[in-house]
């Protein structure tokens, strides 16, 4: 079946009538949908596994909306104390908030209710994880470069909103675990200078815990945050359509084309099918694996707490940052309390988030490159960017791991103090080590690519020459494979030059310094001249 026939058939049906044709005609005359089909129906999407990560996030969000809607039918966002009288025996007669009681009812008295709760929660964890992985793919391939800088920002805001959605949702059942989580938020907020006490007071509607917070978080969780997320997702996808998708370097692919499968039918089948696959995996996890067993945690009460009190994974880095602070960083100055044990993590994480948010603009400023980039970088071909990314990932990972310091201690039979001290060391030194090692690995890989292009693969076949010399035969690389290895952007450090007034500005110096840091170590792509020379050497 060729493309042409499919199109004609489509037009045929429309013309020749029939039920489908009549329906299509009816809709088109009222919506002009044929224009959309014409524009988008055969739009090309490149195929690569890493291009599906954003879809995982999108699909998890759809799953969250579906399962969440079901949950709202039964959940009662009220902190009015009630006596639990549901099916779960070990909580019978216990006083708890209506929110907790209704969450238990969803779990124990509504068929499929627990399943939906677990689907919702697993999908939420997946949502944030998929966004994170998607962002790493974007970062390490340089997909944030012009013209996609703003879409990076939108995506990053979505990441933050997803965490906010997660945290507000996690707090809704008003169980012991999430209540202690809110307690920590309250403590952090109170530690903020000037406004902290008031923010906490307004947030909780009086003193912690109050009877307001669950209802307020519920409004955010099911109304405000989802609305913003849906709007931003729409913008995010609109930009994907406007920019057309990036593609990895490959034979025949250029900065002016996009190569892949059309939306209809192949991409629709794959992407549509993939939705069901993601849903299926989430469903499988929900049917086999417990998540957030609120019945074990019991209702929130300010006095008890559980060993291993941790937030969901995506808040872990913030919890870890709190744990890493050494003792003694709190002072009374000017008759006011300055809680640096809270401010340092807050400011550090704020800066970290800010740097990630504006990274595309930093790199654009350093390179001064104003061209559009639609061909992705292989991570090795941007060694400094990749190394910065590895350093950032290491920093994040150390904070994240620190959030489970107690569990690391019990499961690896080490002391929790040792774990914390190690993590304190790693949080500072680890990123530097990661930067250095990653950069060297990238450069080494680039050198290897050059070797392969110029001399071919090592075939493992040893041949003895007539002169008695042994050599390994090298398998030359074919031109399509070679193209992937030689087609990349290369930058040189910026030379400082006086501007039109004949002055060298501070900005210019900073920029030159950054540029040198980025590009002083560079491996040039193989040029055709080099290639010819190497060929003549071999033959």
């Amino acid at each position, binding site marked *: 079946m060729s493309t042409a026939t499919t199109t004609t058939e489509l037009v045929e049906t429309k013309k020749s009538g029939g039920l489908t044709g009549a329906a299509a005609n009816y809709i088109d005359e009222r919506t002009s949908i044929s224009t959309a089909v014409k524009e988008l129906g055969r739009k090309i999407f490149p195929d690569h596994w890493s291009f599906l990560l954003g879809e995982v996030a999108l699909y998890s969000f759809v799953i969250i909306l579906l399962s969440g809607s079901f949950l709202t039918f039964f959940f009662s966002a009220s902190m009015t104390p009630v006596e639990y009288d549901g099916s779960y025996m070990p909580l019978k007669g216990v006083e708890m908030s209506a929110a907790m009681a209704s969450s238990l009812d969803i779990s124990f008295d509504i068929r499929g209710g627990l399943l939906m709760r677990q689907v919702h929660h697993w999908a939420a964890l997946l949502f944030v994880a998929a966004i994170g992985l998607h962002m790493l793919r974007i970062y390490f391939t340089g997909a944030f470069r012009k013209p996609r800088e703003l879409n990076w920002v939108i995506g990053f805001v979505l990441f933050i909103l997803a965490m906010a959605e997660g945290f507000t949702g996690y707090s809704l059942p008003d169980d012991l675990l999430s209540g202690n989580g809110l307690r920590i938020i309250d403590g952090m907020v109170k530690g903020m200078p000037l406004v902290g006490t008031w923010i906490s007071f307004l947030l909780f509607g009086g003193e912690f815990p109050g009877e307001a917070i669950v209802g307020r978080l519920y409004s955010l969780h099911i109304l405000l945050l989802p609305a913003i997320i849906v709007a931003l997702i729409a913008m995010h996808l609109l930009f994907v359509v406007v920019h057309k998708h990036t593609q990895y370097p490959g034979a025949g692919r250029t900065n002016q084309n996009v190569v892949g499968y059309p939306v209809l039918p192949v991409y629709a089948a794959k992407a549509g099918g993939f939705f069901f696959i993601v849903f299926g995996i989430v469903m499988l996890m929900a049917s086999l694996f417990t998540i957030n*067993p609120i019945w074990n945690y019991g209702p929130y*009460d300010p006095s008890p707490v559980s060993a291993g009190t941790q937030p969901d994974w995506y808040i872990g880095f913030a919890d870890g940052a709190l744990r890493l602070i050494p003792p003694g960083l709190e002072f009374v100055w000017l008759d006011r309390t300055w809680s640096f044990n809270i401010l340092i993590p807050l400011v550090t994480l704020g800066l970290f988030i800010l740097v990630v948010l504006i990274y595309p603009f930093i790199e654009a400023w350093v390179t001064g490159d104003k061209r559009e980039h639609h061909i992705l970088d292989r991570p090795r071909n941007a060694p400094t960017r990749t190394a910065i990314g590895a350093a950032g990932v290491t920093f994040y990972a150390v904070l994240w791991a620190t959030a489970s310091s107690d569990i690391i201690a019990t499961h690896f039979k080490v002391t929790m103090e040792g774990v914390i001290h190690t993590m304190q060391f790693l949080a500072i030194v680890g990123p530097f080590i990661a930067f250095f090692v990653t950069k060297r690995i990238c450069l080494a890989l680039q050198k290897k690519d050059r070797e392969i292009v110029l001399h071919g693969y090592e075939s493992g076949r040893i041949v003895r020459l007539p002169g008695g010399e042994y050599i390994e035969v090298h398998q030359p690389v074919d031109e399509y494979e070679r193209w992937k290895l030689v087609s990349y952007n290369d930058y040189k450090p910026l030379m400082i030059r006086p501007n039109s007034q004949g002055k060298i500005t501070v900005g210019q110096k900073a920029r030159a310094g950054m540029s040198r840091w980025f590009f002083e170590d560079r491996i040039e792509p193989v040029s055709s001249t080099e290639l010819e020379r190497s060929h003549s050497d071999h033959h």
Partner: protein
Amino acid sequence: MTTISTPKQTGGRKAGRRSPLASVALIAIGLLFTGGAYAAFSTSTASAETNAASQQTVGEGQKLFAANCATCHGLEAAGTEAGPSLIGVGAASVDFQVGTGRMPMQLNGPQAEKKAVQFTDEQIASLAAYVASLAPGPALPDASLLDGEGDAANGAELFRINCAMCHNVAGAGGALTQGKYAPALAGVTEKHIYEAMVTGPQNMPVFNDMNISPESKRDIITYLKYLDNNPSPGGFALGALGPVSEGLFLWIFGLGSIVALTVWITAKSN
């Protein structure tokens, strides 16, 4: 798990499943193989307790003590540099420490670890009788407090307030300072749970009868046995460690399998 596969528990209050007949049979089998044996065992220790004064048992225990414990705890059990005094710790303490294999300690670590029990039940009873004869202390619990037939809801609440901060709300255990830890409670016998509460082994605080009444202790045991006997309604509990294990599982299994599938989806078909 079913009644059969959890030894040392006395029949199941929650054993009823589909068919009432099946549960009767299960209880019967359970009692026969495990509960029965346990009941017999606990009566024997109880009687050992009542006859604790029996000079023969005490003498037996003193010999065992001299041979196995005196190096650290001193010949008169008054304690040395290496081990605390055992005067007044009571039979319950000995039964817990020796009955769970924590004593005798093999090597000095942050805390005595649970390991294979080194003595027979009779030997443990003799040791307990000997230590109990030195000074009054917490005695072995009465079997009626260990039946797991108390109020699980009350037990759960008390567990959350008094125990969960160290042992985790689901009894999965947790970390303490300097490499010490609160052990997991799954599968610990009713008697040992009770003894731990009254004696406060190692760094665990003592929960005397004025703090948590014997009936309340029975409720706590009932709750822990409820957790033991009823697998998590949501499916595998992932160690009941909370968000950390959930997060790891999501990244490794959830996202891992989805990424594997993305590779399949975008791979060129043969």
